[in-house]
């Protein structure tokens, strides 16, 4: 039988606010345990929550970024369950009326575009952390994280492969950083994905029973986990078994998923509206105020790059796939002043390849946009050829200096003196009589061979355009 996998994601995005969602304690990561746990964070008797305006603005920002409905009146609800790192015995979340309604995100998988529907996004508070193992058979509780604002973003079950799920997660990851609501740090848990996976016979429109893979904090693990889970579910069904709804964890060491708790053991969260908080009402003015401070969105920027810089659609999409790359490109273009397409080629080519190779973020690129522009200027003014430029770039990457000093030091300046080039051409023509004969017999290809010989003779420094021209004249003469 042919199987189809159906995937939906729930992503917890930690919002970049200075203080927690319902109190004034700091949200900074990595402090000594419980030093950022005030009376509200530890849920002392009598304390009350007060909503952080900044967190709401982040939610509005996100809604605008995915063209979503904004809940003009949303309600905070209590999700009740007992756990030692959940100080109140309930999590304040949103249930029936979320702050962000239906929206969408378009992803690119290979050459295909696909729109993923976002069901909703709601504001909630994070729990603290249970520290097992450090205390000789006891569990330590760190409540620094308790009350950190989260936006939980839920998709429809629209994805049909691990690749699509990962493409969505990456796109979402870029977007939340792009609009400045999340630092995107997956190691610190700022962006965590729960993935719902089910399989069904291809062609069926009935959803299979899903299992939820919890807390994936890298795209690689997500890919592995979904692939493993999909295989496991298909094998289970093909062996005549049934899938039971469950929460599973991915073990990166074994590459396997294993059930954490079944649905029978699942909590009844007894959601009800939190009487300590009034409904959150968002006005047109609130939305306009956020809109006024929104950065240009990737889609708009892509369109602008096509028009303003004449970039092909593919280049514009690639350049705007991350805020960092777009910023880098814009800075380099501004400094360069020449053809933007050349900048795009270099950013998507050499720069991206090097970053990828070294696992670096573009913000940490050893070659700054200014430096890259410096190099491109030397190509544009024929000081060096594109080929030599690659060598100069490699030297710049390892910190040997800027383009001009490397060209100077290594004597890479292109030879544009027509007298000198004529000398080289004459020598090459004299030494390659056979090729000259072939050319004259009508073999155009032989011409390229002669150009190559000239370039070789000049150690790559001869201006290729001039070589072409002089060669043509001499052969015609």
């Amino acid at each position, binding site marked *: 039988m042919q199987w189809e996998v159906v995937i939906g994601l729930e992503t917890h995005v930690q919002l970049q606010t200075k203080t927690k969602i319902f109190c004034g304690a700091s949200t900074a990561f990595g402090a000594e345990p419980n030093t950022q746990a005030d*009376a509200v964070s530890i849920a002392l*008797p009598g304390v009350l929550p*007060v909503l952080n305006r900044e967190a709401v603005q982040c939610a509005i920002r996100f809604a605008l970024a995915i063209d979503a409905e904004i809940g003009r009146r949303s309600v905070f609800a209590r999700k009740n369950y007992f756990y030692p790192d959940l100080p*109140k015995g309930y999590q304040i979340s949103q249930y029936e009326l979320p702050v962000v309604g239906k929206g969408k995100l378009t992803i690119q998988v290979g050459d295909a575009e696909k729109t993923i529907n976002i069901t909703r996004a709601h504001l909630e508070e994070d729990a603290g952390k249970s520290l097992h193992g450090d205390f000789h058979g006891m569990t330590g*509780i760190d409540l620094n994280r308790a009350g950190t604002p989260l936006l939980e973003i839920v998709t429809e079950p629209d994805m049909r492969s691990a690749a699509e799920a990962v493409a969505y997660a990456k796109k979402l990851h870029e977007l939340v950083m792009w609009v400045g609501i999340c630092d995107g740090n997956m190691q610190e848990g700022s962006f965590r994905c729960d993935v719902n996976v089910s399989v069904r016979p291809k062609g069926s429109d009935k959803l299979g029973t899903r299992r939820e893979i919890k807390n994936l904090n890298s795209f690689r693990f997500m890919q592995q986990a979904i692939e493993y889970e999909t295989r496991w579910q298909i094998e289970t069904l093909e062996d005549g078994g049934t899938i039971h709804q469950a929460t599973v964890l991915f073990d990166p060491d074994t590459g396997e998923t294993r059930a954490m708790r079944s649905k029978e053991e699942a909590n009844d969260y*007894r959601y*009800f509206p939190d*009487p300590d908080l009034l409904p959150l009402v968002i006005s047109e003015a609130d939305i306009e105020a956020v809109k006024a401070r929104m950065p240009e969105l990737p889609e708009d920027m892509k369109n602008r790059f096509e028009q303003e810089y004449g970039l092909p659609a593919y280049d514009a999409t690639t350049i705007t796939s991350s805020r960092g790359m777009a910023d880098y490109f814009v800075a380099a273009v501004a400094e360069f002043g020449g053809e933007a397409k050349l900048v795009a080629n270099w950013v998507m080519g050499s720069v991206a390849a090097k970053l990828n190779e070294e696992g670096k973020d573009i913000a940490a690129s050893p070659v700054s946009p200014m430096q890259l522009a410096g190099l491109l200027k030397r190509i544009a003014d024929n000081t060096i050829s594109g080929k030599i430029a690659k060598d100069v770039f490699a030297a710049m990457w390892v910190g040997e200096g800027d383009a001009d000093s490397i060209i100077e030091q290594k004597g890479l300046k292109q030879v544009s003196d027509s007298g000198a080039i004529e000398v080289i051409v004459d020598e090459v023509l004299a030494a390659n009589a056979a090729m000259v004969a072939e050319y004259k017999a009508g073999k155009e290809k032989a011409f390229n061979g002669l150009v190559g010989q000239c370039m070789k003779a000049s150690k790559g420094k001869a201006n290729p355009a001039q070589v072409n021209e002089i060669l043509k004249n001499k052969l015609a003469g």
Partner: protein
Amino acid sequence: MINASLKELAAALASKQISSVELTQLFLDRIVRLNPEINAYVTLDSDKSLAQAAAADALIAQGKAGPLTGIPVAQKDIFCAKGWRTTCGSKMLANFTAPYDAHIISQFDAAGAVNLGKTNMDEFAMGSSNETSFFGKVQNPWDRARVPGGSSGGSAAAVAARMAPAATGTDTGGSIRQPASLCGLSGLKPTYGVCSRYGMIAFASSLDQAGPMAKSAEDLALMMNVMAGFDSRDSTSLQREKEDYTRDLAKPLAGLRIGLPKEYFAEGLDAGVAKVVEEAIAQYRKLGAETVEISLPNTQLSIPVYYVLAPAEASSNLSRYDGVRYGHRAAEYTDLMDMYCKTRAEGFGAEVKRRIMVGTYVLSAGYYDAYYLKAQQLRRLIAQDFEQAFRQCDVIMGPAAPGTAFKAGEKTDDPVAMYLEDLYTIAVNLAGLPGMSVPAGFANGLPVGLQVIGNYFDEARMLNVGHAYQQVTDWHTRMPEGI
């Protein structure tokens, strides 16, 4: 001095007739003498109280005294007070010292009042007789065999026995008005949102409201001037201009329209109480008020609605008492679940457990719509009853409680009979309205309270209504014998 009004006490302090330290000591001495039996206070700290009194004396000497500076006030043990043990009447918090001040406590501090001690209460404010307290029952000073009412029973008994000039209470379903009625005091539950709930240990958040308990309406007004006001730390606190609750005290009552809900004078009301209330209303007619019969048709629904909503909120509010961070934790346990179970089984009393179970049940998947949601809908109907009624009248009057103080133990085995104690008070909380009880006489030798219900934010008007009555009657000055 022990019978003096707050105004008289302020005058005595201002004229150096007595110092705050002396006044505080006077009440502390009475507490030492009377409290072992009456059990109105659960925590005393005379060093702290006297230090505050000394600081107040310094303010008075500098001429910086406000109306409550140097006056000792008893605080219900539901308010967190920094450095004070704060128990909420529960074993769960018997070892809990609050590291911060509730808004109400800091308001009294700022006014220069003296915290005289923390008063006994039903556990987590759940009860109408003060018998559910982990720290033992409280005696009604009018008849030691009887209950003072609840949940603010300690505060009521403290003022009634003149162990405090005034006290704070909280009222979720009648917890200020019913004990005020049973102990012959004046007590006011303000409009929901007028007094900040910050630092006030939550029972049912959408109903809980702090208020004053004192001898007279005038004293209540002075207390309200300290207690009321916006607090940004409570999202349900109302952002309103500060008001002077004494401003209308002396207004004449001519033309006042009093609504008399026929449902409040029906079956279930003690005949003696009915007579007292009717006499009080006759007195108001003499003062120039008119009466009009009104109907609050959903009154009978208020108890079932309340006993769905309040336990639902309570079951969630009390989840934080899990033994993990503070408060009671079982001494021995095998794992986390065992720790939770033993801690909560040991830490909570029977009534609290009953309400946690009811609340958990009504919020459960499959029952939520039939109970919680339905109760929320009925809550709106109950509020609409009052909306209708206030088109016909300025204030509503009736009994505060269906009877007078009952004997300790009389209703402890019958929770429903106990719940009926709040028959006339609960709807006011459900609607978020202000309600007040003022002493109106005696039935069977025991005090009877007249309840005055006002429209939203009409506290000043209600205090005026109470004060005018107290100018022509002396019920509020009566004192129990043997204290």
